[in-house]
């Protein structure tokens, strides 16, 4: 028992959990709804930039990108490229105006812009859909790590992670969540930096490993004993370093580029982060810092995916590592590579980093969705004269409901790829909220009916193309259907608004508010 507790992976995980409990305890007093939902709008650009990075760089980045690169080669690296675009567009078009608008939730934006309860309800549904899509793969990552490295069942992993999240977000609110997210980001970044240093120190230089992988053709030694068919795993390096493995056509690649690059602008948990800055200037600086952090992360993730592949091909890795890489699927490439590069201590740090990634991202999703339930639904429709205290309690109860809901979703995606599931969440966001925020902030002619049409048609189109692709003609069967669904979202808003023509009478006041000078906002 004592020996198990002293294992590096156990020590690091206990340390992370202890830190979360301590920070949550210190920040547990949320006197007002502003404290609970937007952290009192008190976080500077460094803390908030780190927290945005923590929110954005989920298990999909920490585990998924390296895993996809390991599995798909160049096409996997292309995922990272697409994920890296969105924060920059968000910083350019949305970050500053959104902070100047300054409310609690994403749905508030529509309610204010159009004086519309209907728009608020539709926005709540879309927030819950996107958050569910995003939360399921995070839980999958947590359960797989627990299963692989601590021997627990998949179901236990899901329940354990949901329980931790209910405690963490329910008690800490946005204040605790932001500080935890910022800290967790640096744990992950530290783990990645150590892995990169260990790989370079071990002679695994980028151009050399890519050359070795490219030249490999045949079967991988020492893999037969772990393969389901009992044969050594075959591999073609030339195909891995080229394109067309996963995206079979040019248009498939373009479709993913559009879906992922525009998805970030519509992610509720990222948008919400810009409400927590004290000013629009700080919001832009936060975004800039998050972009710097994300760029480094994506760069490292792709490199580590290639490092994992080269270690695997060499056939000289520890049998446990080879077993994890064969049997663990592409989601477990980062921990397995860490073990091969730095032994148990680096593995321990990476496991703590992976949990940090998952907790960080899940907490953002919990906060965004609890705002949708407690603030947008309960406080806006069912209990009009709600006090600040009751609003906080409603937020905490909604965290409990979400914990159960996300847990069920997590149980349904056991066999999925984390990176790809998150890519689909990005597509839904790009087809729904992205048109609403870009056009809502920059175009006075957008109407309530246009906004609702954009949200409904964007959501339906993306859901249909994701879940029922085989009912469509072959040329419309996209792995990531952004090429079709994003234009549907934008065009629905534009065409219906043009036909409707009835804009809110105070739209000029709204534009003045979101585009005003800093001194007028303060």
């Amino acid at each position, binding site marked *: 028992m004592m020996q198990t507790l002293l294992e590096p992976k156990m020590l690091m995980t206990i340390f992370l959990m202890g830190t979360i409990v301590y920070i949550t305890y210190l920040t547990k007093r949320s006197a007002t709804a502003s404290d609970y939902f937007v952290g009192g709008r008190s976080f500077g650009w460094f803390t908030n930039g780190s927290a945005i990075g923590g929110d954005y760089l989920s298990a999909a980045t920490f585990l998924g990108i390296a895993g996809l690169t390991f599995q798909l080669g160049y096409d996997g690296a292309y995922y990272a490229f697409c994920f890296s675009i969105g924060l920059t567009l968000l910083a*350019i078009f949305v970050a*500053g105006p959104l902070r100047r608008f300054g409310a609690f939730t994403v749905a508030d934006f529509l309610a204010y812009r159009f*004086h519309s309860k209907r728009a608020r309800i539709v926005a709540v549904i879309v927030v819950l859909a996107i958050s569910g899509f995003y939360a399921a793969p995070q839980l999958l990552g947590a359960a797989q790590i627990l299963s692989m490295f601590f021997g627990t069942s998949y179901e236990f992993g899901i329940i354990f992670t949901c329980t931790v999240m209910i405690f963490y977000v329910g008690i800490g609110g946005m204040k605790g969540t932001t500080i935890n997210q910022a800290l967790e980001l640096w744990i992950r970044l530290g783990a990645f930096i150590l892995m990169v240093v260990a790989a370079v120190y071990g002679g695994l230089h980028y151009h050399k490993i890519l050359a070795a992988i490219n030249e490999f053709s045949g079967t991988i030694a020492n893999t037969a004993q772990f393969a389901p068919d009992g044969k050594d795993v075959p591999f073609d390096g030339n195909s891995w370093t080229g394109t067309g493995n996963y995206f079979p056509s040019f248009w498939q690649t373009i479709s993913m580029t559009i879906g992922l690059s525009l998805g970030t602008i519509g992610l509720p948990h990222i948008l919400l982060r810009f409400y927590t800055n004290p000013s629009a200037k700080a919001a832009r600086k936060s975004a800039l810092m998050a972009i710097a952090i994300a760029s480094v992360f994506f760069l490292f993730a792709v490199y580590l995916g290639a490092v994992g592949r080269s270690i695997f091909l060499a056939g000289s890795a520890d049998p446990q590592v080879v077993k994890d890489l064969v049997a663990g699927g592409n989601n477990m490439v980062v921990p397995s590579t860490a073990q091969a590069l730095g032994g148990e201590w680096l593995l321990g740090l990476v496991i703590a980093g992976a949990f940090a990634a998952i907790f960080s991202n899940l907490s953002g999703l919990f906060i965004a969705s609890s705002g949708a339930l407690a603030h947008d639904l309960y406080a806006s429709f069912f209990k009009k004269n709600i006090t600040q205290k009751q609003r906080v309690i409603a937020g905490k109860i909604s965290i409990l409901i979400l914990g159960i809901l996300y847990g069920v979703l997590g149980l349904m995606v056991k066999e999925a790829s984390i990176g790809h599931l998150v890519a689909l969440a990005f597509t839904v966001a790009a087809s729904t909220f992205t048109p609403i925020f870009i056009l809502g902030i920059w175009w*006075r002619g957008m109407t309530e009916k246009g906004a609702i049409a954009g949200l409904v048609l964007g959501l339906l189109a993306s859901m249909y193309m994701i879940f029922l692709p085989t009912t469509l003609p072959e040329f419309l069967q996209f792995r990531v259907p952004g090429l079709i669904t994003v234009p549907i979202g934008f065009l629905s808003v534009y065409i219906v608004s043009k036909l409707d023509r009835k804009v809110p009478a105070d*739209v000029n006041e709204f534009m003045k508010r979101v585009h005003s000078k800093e001194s007028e906002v303060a």
Partner: protein
Amino acid sequence: MAGEYSDYEYVEAGKIDVKDLPPLDSETEKIMKGEFSTGFKLSILYYLFIFTIPVLNWFAPEFMFSSMFGGMTYAWFLTGIVAMAIAFIIAYIHTNRYEKRLAKYETGHTIKPDGSVDGRSAG
């Protein structure tokens, strides 16, 4: 604005036909145009770079997947390394320009290339 939040009441603001909408005040319009113009130009530049990669990958694969140094191909270099730097550079240029415009709006004066404010100080 910072800090507290007051609930939004569903006050009926009414709707008007978009053709009857009065023009924006000149200051807000100027700020919006300046912001959008900079953002739009940078986005066009950024997307030119972004779409160049898949276009070249599919229509000039011999070049893109040829060796640049060691096993590093042009495609891998642009996608896995350069793109990450470009994402930051575009955002940095935008934030930098925004801060210069901000100082200009707030003071009514321009910022010189060396960073000093032409006329009275921002403070």
